[in-house]
C-alpha cells in the first residue's frame, strides 16, 4: 500500500509541490541537549546476545529480530530497516530505492514499503553520512503522508558494509510521550553496527564477538565509575555536614546519619527500634507541606527543597530545609538532605530586631536614610524619611515626587547634585529646604556616601536629618549677632565721630569766635584795626589747625601700631571662611577653596589681613545677592606668583564692575550699596599697601569680578631684609 502511494507521490511531488527545506525537518542537534536517560547495559547486552543467537540459529529472521530489538531497547513506537535495492527486493548498493524488509511496532503493516534514494529521509542520511533526527518528515516528503500514524520523530542511522553505505536502521515516535535522546543515538549507532553484521550474515560473526568483548569492557569501566561515585556519596553522608535521611512514603525513617540524629536529638538505638518516624516528627501545621512533598514524589520522583520544622525528642522544635528524591525504580523509598536552619533563623530574628531598633533610632533622631542605585534609579527610603517628607509610607519614590517638595530656590542645587552623583562616585554633603503642603519650610541636612554593590554598580547610601529646629535657632542667633554687630559698629563709629568732632570743633570754635570779635572790632565807632588784624590772624591760624587735624586723622588710618608676625595666608583664609561660612550659606553662596600647597608665609598683621579677606568675601557675597538665574559660586584661592609673592584671589559671579567707576571703587565712602559705608575697600587697600602689597580688581570673562591682593613673602627669606631686621 505504501509502496504504490509513494511511487505515485514521487512524480507528483517532483513536478509541482514546493517542499519544506531539509533544515526545517531536522533536529539532530537537540539529541545532545535533551536530558538523557542512563544506559541500561544489562538490557543491551542481553539484546545483543539474543541477536547473536538469532544470527547463529536463524539468519533468515535476524532482520526482524533486529527491528524488534530496536523497539525494545529505545522504547519507541515503530522500528525497522531500510535497504538499497534495484528491483525492490534484492539488496544492491547501487540501488535507486530503499525498501523496508523488516518493521516492528505500529508501522509493522507497512513492511515491504519504501522510499526513493534521492528524495527521502534514508537518502538524506546516506548523503550526510551520519545519524539524523527528523521531525514530521512528511512536511518535506508528502508521499509519506498516507503512511499512518504520522511520525512525530524519526531517528535514522546509516550502516555500511566494507565502507559502502547500504541502508539505514530507524526508530519512530508517533506521539510526544517521549523523545529520542543521546542514549538512543548511542544505542542506534551500536545497533547499526550490528545491522551491518547482520547484512553480511554469518561471514562476519567474528566482528560480533569483538563487539561483545568491547561491551563487557565498557560495562566494567562503568561499574568502576559507579563504585567511585558511591564512595563519594558515602563521604558526604559520613561527613555529617548536612543531615541525610533514608525513608519510605509510609512515614518511616530507615536510615540517617549522625548530623540528622543530632538535629532531632535521637540516637542510633531509637533509629534501629523504628520509633523515629518522619510523620511523627512533623508538627501538625507542617503536615500540609509534607503531603505536598509526597504528592510531588509520586508525580515526579523528587521534591523541591522547602522549609519546615521537626520536633526534637524533648518536644522543642528545630527549623530545617530539606529536599530529596525517590530511589529509581523503588516507587516507595527515597533519600533526603536536611539542613539545620536554627542559626539562620536566629540571625534573621536578630536582624529584624536591629532593623526595629534602627527605625526607632531614626524616629528619635529625626534622621531618615535612603539608598539609590544609580544604574537602575532604584530608590529605597526608610520610614522616617517618609515622615520627614510627609509622604505616605510605601508610596513609590521618584525624582518627580521629590521635586514637588523641594524649595524652588533649591531645585537647581538638587539637579546639580544629581548630575554630579550620576557622573562620579563622590561623597556629598548639602543642605536644602522643603516646602510642605501647609507652606511651612523644613531644613534638611543630607550626607551621601558612594559605594559599590556586589555587582560593582554605583550606589549611594545617604542620611538626611531634619535640622529645622536647629536652623531656626541658628537664624535667631545669627539675627541677634547681626544686631549686635550693628550696635558695635554704630558705637565704634560714634567713638570715631566724637574723636573727630572734638579735634575739629576746637579750631572751628576758635575761628568763629575770632571772626565774631574781628567783625565787632571793625564795626565799632572807632574801629580797632590792630585788634581786628590780630583776630583775623588767629582765624587763619585756627583754620590751619583744623586742616592739620584732618591730616592727622588720615595718618591714623595709614600709620597705626600693629603686631607683626609670620602669617600663613592659607590658615588665615581658612579661619575667615570658617567665621563667615554661616553668613555665606545663608546668602546661598557656594564657596570653593583652592589653596596652594607649600605657600610661603608672609610677614604682617594677621588680624588686619584677615579683615581684608573677610571684606573681600562679604563684598563678593553682596555682589551676588540679587543673582537668581545662576548658582552663586565664590572661589577663594591662594597662589604664588612669579615674584614669589603670595596672592589671595576672590572670584564671584555677581553683578560685575561698572567700568566707569572701577578706579573710584577704592576711594573712601564710595559705595554702590544702600547699607554700606564704602569704607571697606579703601581700608583694605591701605592695609595691603602697608604690607608692601597690592590690591586690585579685574572683570571676569564671564559674569562677576575677581579681587586679588598680593603680598611679598616673609622678608626673613630675603637676605637684605634679614640684615635690616638685625640692625633694627
Amino acid at each position, binding site marked *: 500500500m505504501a509502496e504504490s502511494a509513494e511511487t505515485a507521490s514521487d512524480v507528483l511531488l517532483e513536478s509541482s509541490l514546493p517542499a519544506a527545506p531539509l533544515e526545517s525537518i531536522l533536529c539532530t542537534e537537540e539529541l545532545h541537549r535533551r536530558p538523557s536517560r542512563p544506559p541500561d547495559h544489562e538490557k543491551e547486552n542481553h539484546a545483543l546476545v539474543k541477536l547473536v543467537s538469532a544470527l547463529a540459529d536463524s539468519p533468515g529472521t535476524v532482520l526482524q529480530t533486529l527491528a524488534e530489538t530496536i523497539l525494545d531497547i529505545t522504547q519507541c513506537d515503530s522500528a525497522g530497516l531500510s535497504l538499497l535495492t534495484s528491483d525492490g527486493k534484492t539488496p544492491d548498493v547501487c540501488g535507486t530505492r530503499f525498501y523496508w524488509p523488516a518493521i516492528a511496532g505500529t508501522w509493522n503493516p507497512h513492511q515491504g514499503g519504501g522510499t526513493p534514494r534521492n528524495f527521502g529521509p534514508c537518502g538524506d542520511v546516506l548523503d550526510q553520512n551520519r545519524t539524523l533526527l527528523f521531525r514530521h518528515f512528511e512536511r518535506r516528503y508528502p508521499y509519506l503522508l498516507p503512511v499512518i500514524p504520522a511520525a512525530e520523530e524519526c531517528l535514522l542511522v546509516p550502516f555500511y558494509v566494507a565502507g559502502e553505505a547500504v541502508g539505514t536502521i530507524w526508530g519512530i515516535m508517533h506521539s510526544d510521550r517521549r523523545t529520542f535522546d543521546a542514549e538512543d543515538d548511542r544505542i542506534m549507532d551500536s545497533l547499526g553496527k550490528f545491522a551491518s553484521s547482520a547484512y553480511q550474515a554469518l561471514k562476519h560473526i567474528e566482528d560480533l564477538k569483538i563487539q561483545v568483548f568491547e561491551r563487557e569492557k565498557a560495562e566494567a569501566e562503568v561499574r568502576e565509575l559507579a563504585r567511585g561515585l558511591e564512595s563519594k556519596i558515602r563521604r558526604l553522608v559520613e561527613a555529617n555536614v548536612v543531615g541525610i535521611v533514608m525513608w519510605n512514603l509510609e512515614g518511616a525513617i530507615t536510615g540517617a546519619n549522625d548530623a540528622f540524629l543530632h538535629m532531632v536529638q535521637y540516637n542510633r538505638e531509637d533509629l534501629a527500634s523504628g520509633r523515629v518516624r518522619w510523620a511523627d516528627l512533623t508538627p501538625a501545621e507542617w503536615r500540609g507541606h509534607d503531603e505536598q512533598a509526597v504528592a510531588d514524589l509520586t508525580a515526579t520522583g523528587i521534591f523541591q527543597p522547602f522549609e519546615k520544622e521537626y520536633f526534637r525528642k524533648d518536644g522543642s522544635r528545630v527549623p530545617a530545609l530539606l529536599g530529596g528524591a525517590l530511589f529509581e525504580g523503588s516507587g516507595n523509598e527515597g533519600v533526603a538532605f536536611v539542613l539545620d536552619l536554627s542559626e539562620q533563623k536566629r540571625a534573621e530574628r536578630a536582624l529584624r530586631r536591629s532593623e526595629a531598633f534602627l527605625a526607632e533610632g531614626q524616629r528619635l533622631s529625626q534622621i531618615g536614610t535612603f539608598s539609590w542605585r544609580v544604574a537602575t534609579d532604584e530608590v529605597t527610603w526608610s520610614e522616617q524619611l517618609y515622615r520627614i517628607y510627609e509622604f505616605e509610607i510605601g508610596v513609590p519614590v521618584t525624582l518627580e515626587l521629590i521635586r514637588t517638595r523641594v524649595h524652588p530656590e533649591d531645585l537647581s542645587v538638587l539637579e546639580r547634585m544629581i548630575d554630579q552623583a550620576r557622573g562620579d562616585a563622590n561623597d556629598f554633603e548639602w543642605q536644602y529646604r522643603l516646602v510642605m503642603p501647609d507652606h511651612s519650610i523644613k531644613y534638611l541636612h543630607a550626607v551621601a556616601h558612594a559605594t559599590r554593590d556586589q555587582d560593582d554598580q554605583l550606589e549611594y547610601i545617604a542620611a538626611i536629618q531634619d535640622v529645622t529646629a536647629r536652623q531656626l535657632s541658628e537664624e535667631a542667633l545669627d539675627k541677634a549677632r547681626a544686631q549686635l554687630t550693628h550696635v558695635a559698629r554704630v558705637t565704634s563709629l560714634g567713638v570715631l*565721630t*566724637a574723636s573727630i*568732632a*572734638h579735634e575739629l*570743633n*576746637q*579750631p*572751628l*570754635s*576758635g*575761628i*568763629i*569766635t*575770632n571772626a*565774631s*570779635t574781628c567783625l*565787632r*572790632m571793625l564795626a565799632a565807632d572807632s574801629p580797632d584795626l590792630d*585788634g581786628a588784624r590780630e*583776630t583775623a590772624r*588767629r582765624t587763619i*591760624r*585756627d583754620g590751619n*589747625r583744623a586742616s592739620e587735624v584732618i591730616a592727622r586723622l588720615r595718618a591714623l588710618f595709614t600709620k597705626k601700631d600693629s603686631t607683626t608676625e609670620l602669617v600663613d595666608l592659607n590658615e588665615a583664609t581658612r579661619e575667615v571662611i570658617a567665621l563667615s561660612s554661616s553668613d555665606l550659606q545663608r546668602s546661598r553662596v557656594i564657596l570653593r577653596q583652592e589653596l596652594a600647597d607649600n605657600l610661603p608665609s608672609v610677614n604682617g598683621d594677621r588680624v588686619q589681613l584677615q579683615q581684608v579677606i573677610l571684606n573681600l568675601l562679604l563684598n563678593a557675597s553682596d555682589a551676588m545677592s540679587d543673582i537668581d538665574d545662576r548658582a552663586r559660586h565664590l572661589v577663594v584661592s591662594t597662589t604664588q606668583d612669579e615674584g614669589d609673592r603670595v596672592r589671595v584671589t576672590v572670584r564671584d559671579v555677581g553683578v560685575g564692575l561698572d567700568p566707569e567707576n572701577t578706579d573710584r571703587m577704592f576711594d573712601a565712602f564710595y559705595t554702590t550699596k544702600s547699607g554700606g559705608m564704602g569704607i571697606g575697600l579703601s581700608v583694605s587697600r591701605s592695609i595691603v599697601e602697608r604690607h608692601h602689597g597690592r590690591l586690585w580688581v579685574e572683570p571676569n570673562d564671564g559674569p562677576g569680578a575677581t579681587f586679588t591682593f598680593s603680598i611679598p613673602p616673609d622678608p626673613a627669606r630675603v637676605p637684605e631684609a634679614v640684615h635690616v631686621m638685625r640692625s633694627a
Partner: protein
Amino acid sequence: MTIERSLVSVVDDDESVRESLPDLLRQFGFAARAFSSAEAFLESNFVGTTRCLVLDVAMPGMSGLDLQQELMRRHQEIPIVFITATGDQTVRPRVLAQGAVECLSKPFSETALLDALNAALRMR
C-alpha cells in the same frame, strides 16, 4: 567814673579759646580773665569777683564738672556756662541738672553765647 564791668572768667585748656574768647567778651562789654585749668582758677584771686564762669567740660586734671562741684562745696554760687567740643549728647542734661545755666557745643555763635551770659547775670 568807670562803670564797673561784670567779670567773666574763662577756664579752658585749649589755648585758642583762651586767646579768642576774652577778646569777644570784652567786645560784649564784660571784663574777662582766662585760666588754663580749674586748679589755676581756684588758686587765683578772682573766684570771689567772677560774676559768670565760662567753663570747658573736658580738661586734664580737674574737669569742668569737678570744678562745678568744688564751687558748690565752697558755697561759691557762680553761674556757669559750659562749653564742650565733644558731640556727647549726655553731657548737657547732666550739667544742667547740677545747676549750670547753659551748655554750649563748640563751635557756638556769638548770639548763643551772649544769650547764655545774659541769662547767667540775670540770676544774681
